[in-house]
């Protein structure tokens, strides 16, 4: 009797001891036979480079539309510019998550999409004629600036057109509009030519799982971008970080009102990258195949299935919202629908930021949203 209890307690002790230690299940992620180069080649040749090329086509069309608008400001030419803006902004959501290598060197994400736009800073940049698009922490450039300049300067198209008619009062604004998009064009084409040069080969050859390996870069950037969706696109506007008081003015694309479309596009882009879906729509080699190959499990379910199901659920819930997000967030308390989406987004963070890297044997090296204190 006594011995049985003793053994039991000893067992309990050991169990509790083991429970205190980090879960380090053995997995094959660190020495799997998965051919990483297939993954990297698919990502480089069929995803990243074609996405940048496609974005470049969109930006060129946007430049043409803006030129036409500035040459002959009218409701029609403005509408065309607005349409070109929207399609390139949507395309950007696909390109945003590869902020390493050439994109990182050219500060692509900060240059293209620091939101919400700071209209005070923007107006000062216009009137003073001084701006520095290479600074990381300015909010007067990229798509958010275009959003304001093309949609935010008046109640309707007529009154916006008035701001661009060739008058002395408008000349600085007209110049700035072109400068914004030219800067985006320059940085994108630099990024693209870097990729098409040596970088692609370095990237594909950079195998292994160490910090700085291509797998490490992809997993980190995938997560960092995903957390921007969670925090900046949904979390901050919804009010989950601000005592449930929503911040409708903090949504992406506040003026053009396409915030919900952009949010859906960004989650879709995450999912497609994860699955290795090419720009042409073919389901190529992705992280999903990697996880399947090493048979990654979580609670006896395939981790890949958990991640894919969660993506579907999030997209479904986003699609059920009535946009734009600045309306969907409500006015005084976080709306249950958005809280729910935020919670789902958070669940996926555990899957892709904890479970996925642990299984693939890579480390998360970026720091998310550090907070200050004094």
């Amino acid at each position, binding site marked *: *009797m*006594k011995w049985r*209890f*003793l053994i039991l*307690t000893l067992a*309990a*002790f050991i169990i*509790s*001891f083991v429970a*205190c230690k980090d879960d380090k299940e053995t997995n094959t992620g660190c020495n799997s036979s998965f051919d990483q180069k297939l993954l990297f080649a698919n990502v480089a040749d069929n995803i990243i480079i074609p996405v940048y090329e496609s974005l470049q086509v969109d930006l060129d069309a946007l430049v043409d539309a803006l030129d036409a608008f500035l040459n002959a400001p009218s409701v029609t030419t403005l509408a065309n510019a607005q349409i070109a803006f929207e399609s390139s902004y949507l395309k950007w959501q696909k390109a945003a998550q590869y902020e390493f290598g050439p994109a990182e060197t050219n500060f692509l994400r900060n240059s293209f999409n620091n939101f919400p736009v700071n209209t005070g800073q923007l107006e000062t940049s216009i009137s003073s004629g001084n701006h520095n698009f290479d600074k990381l922490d300015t909010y007067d450039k990229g798509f958010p600036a275009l959003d304001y300049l093309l949609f935010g300067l008046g109640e309707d198209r007529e009154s916006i057109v008035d701001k661009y008619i060739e008058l002395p009062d408008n000349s600085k604004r007209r110049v700035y509009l072109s400068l914004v998009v030219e800067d985006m064009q320059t940085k994108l084409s630099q990024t693209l030519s870097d990729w098409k040069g040596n970088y692609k080969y370095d990237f594909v050859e950079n195998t292994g799982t160490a910090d700085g390996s291509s797998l490490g870069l992809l997993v980190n950037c995938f997560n960092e971008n995903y957390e921007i969706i969670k925090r900046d696109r949904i979390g901050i506007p919804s009010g989950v970080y*601000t*005592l*449930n*008081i929503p*911040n409708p003015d903090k949504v992406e694309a506040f003026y053009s009102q396409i915030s919900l479309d952009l949010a859906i596009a960004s989650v879709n882009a995450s999912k497609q990258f994860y699955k290795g879906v090419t720009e042409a729509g073919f389901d190529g080699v992705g992280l999903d195949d990697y996880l399947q190959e090493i048979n990654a499990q979580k609670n006896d379910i395939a981790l890949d299935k958990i991640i894919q199901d969660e993506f579907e659920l999030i997209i479904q819930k986003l699609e059920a919202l009535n946009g734009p997000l600045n309306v969907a967030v409500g*006015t*005084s*308390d976080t709306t249950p629908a958005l809280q729910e989406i935020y919670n789902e987004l958070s669940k996926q963070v555990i899957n892709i930021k904890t479970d996925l890297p642990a299984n693939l044997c890579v480390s998360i090296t970026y720091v998310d949203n550090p*907070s200050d*204190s*004094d």
Partner: protein
Amino acid sequence: MKKINSLVLLFTVIIGLVSCGKDDYDIPTSYNFDNVSYSGQTSRLNMLTEMKTYMSTAQQGVELDAQKLKDMFVNEGDVFSKVYPKQIKSKTFESERTVFETLMEELALASKSKVAGTFENSGIIQSNDGSKYYLIGSDGLDHAQIIEKGIMGACFYYQATSVYLSADRMNVDNDAVVIGEGTAMEHHWDEAFGYFGVQTDFPSNKEILSFWGNYSNKTDAVLNSNQTIMNAFLKGRAAISNDDLEKRDEAIAEIRANWEKVSVGSALHYLNEATTSYEDKAIRFHALSEAIAFIYSLKFNEDKIISNTEVNNLLTELATSNSFDQMNLYQTELAAISSVSDQLATIYSMEDLKAEF
């Protein structure tokens, strides 16, 4: 029997081992811990005190400078009696920063009035017994009160209950000791305490009370808030220094809940005053402005009982709008004051205490 006893003992030992923390530590009766520092918080309390003093000169007819008030808010230029290394604005709940700047402009504008206050003109209004003077806007608001009490809510109360005691600031290192500041976790806790505005030996010492400390003392007779809140701060700090995170979390909940009650009790107090002095316009507007600011402050607690919608509804019922620049107190009827008071008391289960504040 003997066997069972020894087994119980064994289990106890194991549980003790597994929980890894130290259960056996003393909680001091005053805030005398090693490496305590909250000078930044003390600076902000002193800065608001100086702003309050400056704003109150308007009651004697001094014209206020809006720019000076805004400079005091961000601590720019030579606007204080001494050098403070901190600012209030950057620590104020983000969406409210410009709200206070607008209020400062309105206050400064009102202070330039040369006529007595009416529903058409901002100006000074005297109480019926001639003892009190308040500068009241044409909207019936005592802007100085809204600014002072509003900053107490959107900055001090917010920073203490929802920033420093939040998971973000509490799930931090508790090993590396910085001399004079303690561990990161200890330091965050001390900073929350700093915003309470009391001395380390409160409540036996009630000589110097700032802002919330003062209002805790005013509601203490009904809520026993002084000892309750102080004990929670002491318990949590001792718990952190002894790695007892369970007790720390209990203390966080106690601080949030009881500090919230202080704001509720203060609001109820001023609603009572507005009711009994309804015929005395100066007192009524002044008291309603105080009540409005304390109700507004309730928003800024992460674990609050009331919802933001309820706060907004109460403010709208009391002042026709939940945003300060749209409010009007000239239309507030007795029935509305009593209705808001009832609703507030019901939300906090204070129906029986309501009249005592």
